[in-house]
């Protein structure tokens, strides 16, 4: 932002920092521990009157001086140089904040150098006492140098009270100061032991060599307990988020955790061999290994510390890319490129779209990432679509808190996604799916208002049944389309026929072989625990059958109908015809209704993989695998491995879901909370567009499930809220679970102001209440305000799909399916969702509208018997589709 960025697409700056830092940190610790080692070994030599050991101290001093003063000293300056090149903003901050700490450290440093030079050059030329004093002074100055630097290093992760006060001393003596000081002192002693072995090797005298090696082993093992305890102490003082990053969320940490474990085992295992009198050559190999492992071991610690600190370079103060948290909001409003001083491009235009994205990458991402090498982004985005990359950028810093949030406008975010997708991955820009909607037709069954005695009303229970339609890799929504019906015997006071009649259904001919279009019946045993005959649903329903009467409602339960026709046409609105027969077997009524079913789950929009079925719809294996990969990354599961072994999972095995009838694991979020809570973090600020990305509601898509009258002037968010609102209400319903808090942490409600205002809800059992707008059953012409969001139907029986009027008629029987209320408009066949209104009253509106009471009643009605505000409701819109 403020500083130029060193363009290192190949190696990346952080790798250069790591190389210099690891060398320096090991040697710098050696410079401290080794100082103590020298003076104590000298003491030991005098005490034991061992002149050979004293000679060893002298030769070790020369080695110590050459290593610590040259390599250690200059790489220390090197770290300063390299961090100033890679993180100039952070370096400037640390220099300005702690200039006098650095200056104090320099005082100790120069005193340390003078002491060491005297200790070395005057070895044997000073009195024992004076030489030992010099040795002790060296160690004290070296340790004080560590004391100061440690404060600044610890500050970067645990700034503590400094965040509030900005006080120098609060910053230096921060919460991490003491544990890391103990930790680093212990490490210094261990490294002194390891490096002591190097010069010991050159001693030809076996006995002397062994004496020194035993002595060094003591240096390695005695501080080990202190090291372990101080490490535990450290985990207590660091921020919970930082610890969680190391232990759970940042997958980068896995390798370094393993490195620490394995190298610790090798280091302290192999160290024991120094106690055994092996031949010198073998000892040489062992020592070489030990020294090498020490560097890797130290690298593991330093990397883990870096990871704990992410996304900050200075905790809660400065992000790794040099942007301050407080700047993000302004940058998002005014644009990153305009704010970045070193940008060659100041504004994203159509002409420079990808190029501007590349500029944003260089200025905002390059401080940690390369293009395709160390911590390269190429392999991180290669499984995503351009849209998915954009979502990933939106989600940065939210659930994966180890990344800073993307800073910039939504156009800049799109430009960056475009550069990553088109330039870095070399893929063609995505073009919106061009769907050719076939023109379908239907026949309105006949109805003679004078002669016919029965009215049969038929509807789908939820208005659109989505199917995950993969099963080989994962599953979450089986084919299960439920139709409800009510049979009314016409009279002045009509009678609802509860039983005794036979209502049989039959699907459209082209939809009678679902087994030819889905793998559901191949994996039903594994996924659903039921080995079903083909074309048979989870409750035994087939492509034709008899409805069952449940409390007066006729139900065709979970018909496994698919949107794929045998002739290769995608039809998400197959018709089901129901014929009612009286106890004598005579047909008394017949009607049809759509069984809305879609496999247009838009996972592929972000997770890639395309559509599985004729490039139109269906969840592809590749998409599903990519989803599992992400799930495993965030939740530590092994779903991908399981799927690849041929064991696909039903998401609801763990995530409870009322619509699928699974209890799940009560310790983890239910399916709806989880999937919406997670994705809301990645699809923030998108309103209706976020719904369309996943659900088949995209107006230009192959399904366009919003067919009802409301679609003329409302969208999904009008009732359900934006994805943020929707997710927050669901997550609040499970607020007792820790994960709910994590997913909700970065979400801001849109339809209400605060989290406190949100009413929690349970998915499927608490839905937006129609009376949120239709207070007192009024309609738009009566004038109303408000929203159904946050006004949940209080339970399953109060839901639109389950509710009846004063006479026992289901709401949906007269008003139509949810999302397809009469008069509806269907892109495949405009009047397809209005068959019964057209059949019984010739108008595509609510049954009984425009004084059509005679559909059921044999006399004219003047009272609102079904619900208030019922009669004389003349609503022009119903006529437009005639």
């Amino acid at each position, binding site marked *: 932002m403020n500083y130029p*960025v060193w363009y290192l697409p190949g190696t990346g700056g952080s790798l250069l920092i790591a190389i*210099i830092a690891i060398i320096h940190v090991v040697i710098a610790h050696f410079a401290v521990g080794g100082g103590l080692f020298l003076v104590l070994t000298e003491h030991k030599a005098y005490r034991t009157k061992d002149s050979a050991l004293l000679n060893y101290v002298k030769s070790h001093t020369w080695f110590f001086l050459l290593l610590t003063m040259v390599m250690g000293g200059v790489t220390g*300056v090197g770290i300063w*140089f390299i961090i100033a090149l890679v993180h100039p903003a952070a370096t*400037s901050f640390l220099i300005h904040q702690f200039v006098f700490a650095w200056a104090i450290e320099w*005082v*100790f*440093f*120069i005193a340390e150098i003078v*002491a060491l030079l005297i200790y070395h050059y005057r070895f044997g030329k000073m009195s024992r006492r004076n030489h030992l004093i010099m040795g002790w002074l060296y160690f004290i100055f070296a340790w004080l140098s560590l004391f100061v630097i440690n404060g600044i290093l610890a500050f970067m992760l645990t700034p503590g009270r400094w965040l509030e006060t900005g006080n120098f001393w609060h910053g230096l003596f921060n919460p991490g100061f003491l544990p890391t000081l103990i930790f680093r002192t212990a490490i210094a002693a261990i490294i002194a032991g390891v490096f002591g072995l190097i010069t010991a090797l050159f001693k030809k005298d076996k006995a002397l060599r062994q004496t020194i090696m035993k002595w060094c082993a003591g240096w390695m093992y005695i501080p080990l307990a202190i090291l372990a305890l101080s490490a535990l102490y450290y985990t207590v003082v660091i921020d919970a988020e930082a610890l969680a990053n190391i232990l759970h969320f940042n997958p980068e940490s896995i390798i370094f955790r393993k490195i620490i474990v394995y190298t610790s085992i090798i280091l302290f295992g192999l160290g024991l061999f120094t106690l055994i009198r092996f031949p010198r050559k073998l000892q040489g190999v062992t020592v070489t290994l030990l020294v090498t492992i020490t560097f890797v071991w130290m690298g593991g610690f330093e990397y883990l510390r870096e990871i704990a600190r992410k996304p900050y370079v200075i905790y809660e103060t400065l992000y790794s890319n040099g942007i301050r948290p407080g700047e993000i909001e302004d940058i998002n409003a005014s644009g990153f490129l305009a704010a970045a001083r070193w940008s060659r491009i100041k504004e994203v235009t159509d002409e420079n779209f990808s190029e501007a994205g590349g500029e944003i990458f260089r200025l905002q991402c390059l401080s940690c990432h390369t293009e395709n090498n160390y911590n390269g982004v190429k392999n991180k985005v290669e499984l995503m679509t351009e849209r998915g990359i954009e979502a990933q950028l939106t989600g940065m810093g939210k659930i994966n808190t180890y990344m800073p949030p993307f800073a910039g406008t939504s156009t800049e975010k799109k430009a960056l996604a475009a550069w990553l997708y088109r330039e870095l991955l070399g893929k063609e820009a995505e073009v919106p799916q061009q769907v050719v909607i076939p023109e379908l037709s239907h026949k309105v069954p006949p109805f003679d208002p004078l002669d016919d005695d029965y009215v049969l009303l038929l509807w789908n229970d939820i208005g659109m049944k989505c199917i995950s339609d993969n099963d080989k890799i994962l599953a979450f929504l089986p084919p299960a389309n439920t139709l409800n019906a009510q049979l009314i015997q016409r009279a002045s006071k009509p009678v609802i026929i509860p039983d005794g009649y036979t209502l049989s259904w039959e699907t459209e001919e082209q939809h009678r072989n679902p087994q030819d279009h889905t793998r559901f019946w191949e994996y039903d045993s594994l996924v659903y625990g039921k080995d079903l005959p083909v074309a048979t649903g989870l409750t035994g329903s087939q492509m034709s059958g008899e409805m069952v009467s449940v409390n007066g409602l006729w139900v065709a339960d979970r018909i496994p109908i698919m949107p794929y026709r045998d002739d290769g046409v995608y039809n998400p609105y197959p018709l089901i015809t129901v014929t009612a027969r009286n106890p004598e077997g005579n047909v008394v009524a017949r009607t049809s209704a759509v069984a809305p079913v879609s496999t247009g789950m838009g996972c592929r929009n972000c997770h890639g993989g395309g559509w599985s079925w004729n490039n139109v719809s269906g969840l592809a294996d590749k998409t599903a695998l990519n989803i599992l990969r992400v799930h495993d990354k965030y939740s530590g599961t092994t779903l991908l491995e399981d799927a690849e072994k041929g064991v696909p999972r039903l998401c609801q095995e763990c995530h409870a879901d009322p619509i699928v009838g699974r209890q799940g694991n009560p310790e983890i979020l239910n399916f709806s909370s989880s999937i919406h809570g997670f994705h809301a973090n990645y699809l923030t600020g998108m309103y209706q567009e976020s719904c369309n990305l996943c659900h088949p509601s995209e107006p230009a898509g192959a399904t366009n499930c919003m067919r009802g009258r409301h679609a003329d002037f409302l969208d999904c968010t009008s009732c359900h809220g934006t994805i943020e609102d929707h997710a927050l209400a669901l997550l609040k319903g499970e607020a007792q679970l820790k994960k709910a808090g994590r997913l909700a942490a970065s979400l801001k409600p849109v339809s209400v102001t605060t989290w406190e205002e949100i009413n929690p809800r349970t998915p499927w059992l608490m839905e937006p209440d129609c009376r949120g707008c239709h207070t007192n059953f009024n309609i738009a012409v009566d004038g109303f305000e408000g929203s159904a969001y946050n006004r949940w139907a209080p339970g399953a029986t109060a839901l639109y799909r389950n509710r009846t009027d004063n006479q026992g008629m289901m709401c949906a029987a007269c008003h139509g399916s949810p999302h397809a209320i009469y008069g509806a408009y269907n892109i495949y066949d405009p009047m397809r969702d209005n068959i019964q209104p057209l059949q019984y009253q010739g108008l595509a509106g609510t049954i009984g509208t425009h004084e059509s009471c005679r559909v059921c009643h044999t006399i004219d009605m003047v009272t609102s018997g079904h619900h208030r505000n019922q009669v004389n409701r003349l609503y022009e819109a119903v006529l437009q589709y005639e």
Partner: protein
Amino acid sequence: MDPVIPSPDIIPVHWLWFQILLLVTFILHLIMMNLILGGTLLALWDKVVNRKESNYAGTLPVILALTINLGVPPLLFVQVLYGHLFYSASVTQAVPWILVIPALILGYYGSYIYVSKRNKSPQLAMTGLAVSALLILYTGFMLVNNSTLTLVPERFAMHLNNPGGWNLNIGEPSLWPRYLHFITSAIAIAALGIAIHAKFAFKDDPSKADMIIKSSLRRFAWFTLAQFIFGTLFWLSTPKEVWMIFMGGNMTATILMVTSWLLSASMVYTAFRGRLNITLFHALLVLIMMVIMREYMRFAYLRDIFSPSHLENKDELWPLLVFLILFIAGLGAIYYMIRLATSKNNES
């Protein structure tokens, strides 16, 4: 503000504190830098012409250690005052700049190879010394590059066309004259250092000491005379607005310039006369004046862009006070250690 000039950070105390600390520590670093650069070049020259060197070259690794160490505080304080310009200049030439680190490490080891092998393996020692000299020269070249680029922020724009950090400030007219000015001054000061070293190292052999002192002072005088050319070249290679400050544009700067010319002339005379102490005194005064003039020059370069006097400060005095106390204590400790090292009790 120019869009490619970053905003500076807030400083803890008044800027003059840092200006003073910068001046004091830079003078110390400059002395050591002159001794190591000039000393290495002279040692190399002596080897090449097979001139019998005095044993001063044995101190090179120690001097290099102290040079690097004493380079830390001025680098620190210059970053406090000019960090936003310094970091930008560094990133602009990141690759050659970071190579200073391996150069210093190798140069350092080169000097150790020279010292430890000069009797056993003269060829290897010579190679070590040559490598060391080259790498120290490279380090100096990069420091000159960086410090000159820091003065001309408008040239930072070169980074936009070449963001890989492969730029150098070669287009700067004062770059080579400044570099030559530093090299010649380093040789001169190192010659003076050799003379001082001889005075102490050959206490027991006054005639040898006298010979080395006289020859070294002659070298000092000749290289100082050369400075009249290189220094003037450097001075006049700067923009008119800059060199004019020493020609009446700024009274203090002008006085410093005139005085340093006069002192330099005087010290050439005393050097040719073989008078070590008075020459040393002159040289120190000139060096201090040169460092102060360097700051005036920096102000002049940046006059329309930035002045450290504009920096916001937090008035956080305690850390400064603790530093000053520890600094004095540190000096005391160093004194104590040197006393301890040279104590007569060591004989017991």
